[in-house]
Structure formats: C-alpha cells, structure tokens
C-alpha cells in the first residue's frame, strides 16, 4: 500500500472508522478517508464494494453504524446543518424534479443551500454559464436530454461553492465533447476545493486524480498516489492495479477461460 504525501493542512472531509451494517452484513467496514483542499481524489471499486453506501454516509443520507464524518471541521451528526453548508453532492441518479424548469430548479436549490438572497441570482447565472446550461434553462427538466440532466446535476452540487464536492459517476451519459468539458470543470473545481470522484471510468480517474482509494468488499484495499500514467510497460497501469486488487482468483480464472473461448 503506497503512503500518501503528508499534508500540513487539516482535511476538509474526514471520515474516521466509518462502518455500516445491514442486518448481519457489513457493507462498509471501518473505513478511514481524508480529503484536503486543492485535490481531486478518486474512489474506485467493483459493483457491490460499498461505494454508494460510503458516499451516502459522507453526504448525510445514511447514518453510519459506527464512526464519524467531519466536513470542514463540523460533525455531520452533531452539527449536520453547518457541515452540509460546505457540501455539494451529486448522487448516481441526479436528484432532479422533472416537473420544474432548469432555471426554477436551480433557484430552488440556491435557496435550499441558504445562499444569501442578494447573491442567489448571481449564483444561479454563474452556475448556468459554468455548466453550459444557458440554452436549456427555460425547458422542463423532463424534456432535457440525459447529458443536460447530468450537467444540471453537477450544477446543483456546485451552485453554493462548497468546500467539499462529492461526485458519483459525473460523466455517465455524456458524449465525448461533454466529457472533456466536464473534466475541465472538475479540474477547475479541484484547484481550491476538495473533490471526491467515484467512477467506473478509469480514464476519468487517471485524467483527473492525483490520489485514489480503491474499495473491495466493504474495505479499503488501496489508498495513495496513482501509478504514473505513461509508465510504458503496462498500457493501463491503473486498470491493472484495480484488477489485481479487486478480482478474486475465481474471477480471474473465469475471465481467462472466457477470453480463451473467444480466441
């Protein structure tokens, strides 16, 4: 396990010993996670690794069985409102109301995030511009394409300029041009904010993140700097690392037999 570079500042998002149990099954087991200002960190893991559970706990949607989460120094349990003021969260399904127009939706979100009344209009128009929503702002969300809905989902997560931004699969459903735009947007956000990026798309992680956590069966199996992208020998080193850490020997065997069968 590679050690991360030592940080002098305090973490903006800090999870300590977070566990979650459903009945007898531990979905997340004693997980420690820290994000610092000005970094984009990847969260990887196969389906069922406990990624969405941990993201739900970090965003206050699910109470952890044990452990604590602090955002910008505020406890998500005891000082939930203060903590959530500094949090922007895009879940896997963007939380959009289909019967509202994009503009009405963003105005509602601005109020919900307690942006001062005098700043609301500016925040809305700025986020519309940053996420490229100007052409569709008057349309009902139900009539927007998947790509625009995804952008609107990102817009609601960053409208209040939070310290911590958690994005769950932000580039799903976008076309290649939009992916480039959104990556650039995330890159700018990561300059002075903390961004936690959960994704299955390894190129996204490689392009954006300096550091990553990899989860498997509810536990962290890797935490640290990403391998150099162009380290020549293996074409996709992160892919290799991911496969090594998260595939059981059985999986590998089946994978091998299927590849052989295809040849």
């Amino acid at each position, binding site marked *: 396990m590679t050690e991360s570079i030592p940080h002098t500042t305090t973490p903006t998002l800090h999870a300590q010993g977070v566990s979650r149990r*459903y009945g007898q099954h531990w979905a997340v087991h004693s997980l420690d996670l820290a994000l610092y200002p000005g970094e984009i960190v990847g969260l990887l893991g196969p389906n069922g690794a406990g990624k969405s559970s941990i993201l739900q706990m970090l965003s*206050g949607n699910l109470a952890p069985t044990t452990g604590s989460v602090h955002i910008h120094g505020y406890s998500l349990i005891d000082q939930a409102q203060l903590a959530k003021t500094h949090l922007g969260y895009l879940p896997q399904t963007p*939380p959009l109301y289909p019967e509202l127009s994009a503009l009405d939706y963003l105005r509602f979100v601005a109020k919900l995030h307690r942006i001062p009344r005098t700043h609301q209009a500016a925040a809305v128009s700025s986020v519309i511009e940053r996420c490229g929503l100007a052409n569709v702002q008057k349309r009902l969300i139900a009539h927007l394409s998947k790509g625009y809905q995804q952008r609107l989902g990102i817009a609601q997560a960053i409208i209040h300029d939070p310290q911590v931004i958690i994005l769950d699969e932000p580039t799903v459903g976008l076309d290649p041009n939009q992916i480039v735009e959104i990556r650039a947007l995330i890159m700018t956000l990561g300059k002075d904010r903390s961004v936690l990026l959960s994704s299955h798309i390894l190129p996204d992680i490689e392009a954006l993140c300096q550091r990553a956590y990899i989860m498997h069966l509810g536990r962290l199996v890797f935490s640290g700097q990403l391998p150099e992208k162009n380290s020549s020998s293996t074409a996709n080193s992160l892919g290799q690392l991911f496969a090594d850490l998260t595939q059981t020997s059985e999986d590998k065997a089946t994978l091998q037999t299927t590849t052989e069968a295809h040849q």
Partner: protein
Amino acid sequence: MILTIARKELRTLFNSPLAWFILSAVTLCLGFSFLQRLDDYLQMQAKLLQLANPPGVTELVAAPTVALAAAVFLFAVPLLAMRMLAEERRQQTLTLLLSAPVSITEIVLGKFCGLMMMLLFIVAIVISMPIMIMGTTPLDWGLLASMATALILLGAGFAAISLYASSLTRQPIVAALLGFGMILIMLLAGETLGDNLDQYGWPYLAALVQVFSPLLNFEPLGKGLIDSYAISCGLLLMTLFLILTIRELDRQRLRG
C-alpha cells in the same frame, strides 16, 4: 426554509394536471350542490317565514356545502399528498433535501405547509360561494368563519395523516390508498369506539379516543360552536402525525 419547500411543493402541484383536476372537480361538485340547496331554500322560504325563529341561509345553504366539502377532502387530500414523499424516494430526489443544510423537520413542515396552502385555496372556493350571495341576503359571518376554521382543521388532520402515509411507501398510489384507508378507519371507528367506551363507563378513555376521530372534532365548529376540546384534539391529531412522519424519515436515514 419551510416556506421555500412549501412554495416548491405548491408549484409542483400546479404543474401537474392532478391539482387542476381536483380543483375543477371540487368546484363543480360543490357549486352544483350549493345551487341545489339555494333552490330548495327559495322554495321553502314561504314556509320558513311562518316559523318563530327560522334558520338562516348560512345554516341551510352554506352548512351542507361545507359538510360536502369535508367529505370531498377525504378523497382529495390523500390524492394531493400522495406524491410528496413517496415520489421523492422513488425518483431519489430526497437526496437533494437530505444533503442540503435542511433538517428533516423543516422538510416535513415545508411539505405540510405546501399542502395546506392548496387546501386553503379549496376552502376559499367553498366559502366564496355563500359570500357571492351576500348582496341579496344577510349572512351569519360568525358561523361562516367557524365553518371555514372547521374545514381547515379537518384538512390539516387529513394532510398530516396523508403525508405520513406518503412517507411509508415509494408508490404514490399506494400512499393515497393508505392515507384514504387510515382516515376512513378513523372516521368510522373513532366515533363508535368513543361511544362504546363512554357507555362502558370509561369517559376519560373515550375523551382520549376523540383525538382519532376527525369528524367528531369537526362537528362542533361546523355548527358554529367553539369547543376548545374538539379543537385541541384536532390539533393534537395533526401534530401527532407530523411527528410520526418526521420520525419515519429519520428512521429511513438510520436504516438505509
């Protein structure tokens, strides 16, 4: 914050055909009934004049209309409330509210207030009917105000129960049926149970059961009688179900 959520709920209601359908159906039903009562009153007028202390137009025309409006609430409120929490969970939009700096209490009260604004709108339509004839006949304003309050109190109780039903499921239709069922059971059982307990000599228990009998709490005010016990029971029923809803949402956050 509560007002922000309430306004959004109201906007959502008016952006869907359901609210307009319910409003037009209510207006049509109640308007027709009101006209019929008015017609009956005009025919009876000659006979009424011979009585020493004849009931007025407010009692004979407006009261039955308000009673019908109360019956309409039984269907309309669960339908208006069904999507409020069930749909949020089904479309996974509750995440937006839960990860924003808003407490669960504010979410529930916001939704409740949004629903109450809609119900106030319906009450205003009902009360405007007798007000329309005020130029032609004197009205009993006190009775009218009391009836409006009774209707609002009844609506608030139904709204809290329906909101609780909506928090229990992801399917709006199931939520509507559940809310309707709960209200119906309370209407039917609440009254008989109270009467029976009273007969068996347990008046205190009967008084307690009155909390769960919305109609029993509606009746005195509907007749223009300010019965503080009935009003408190109505308010208690509303508060109880709002707390249950808050607890249910909190439980879902804990349980996942």
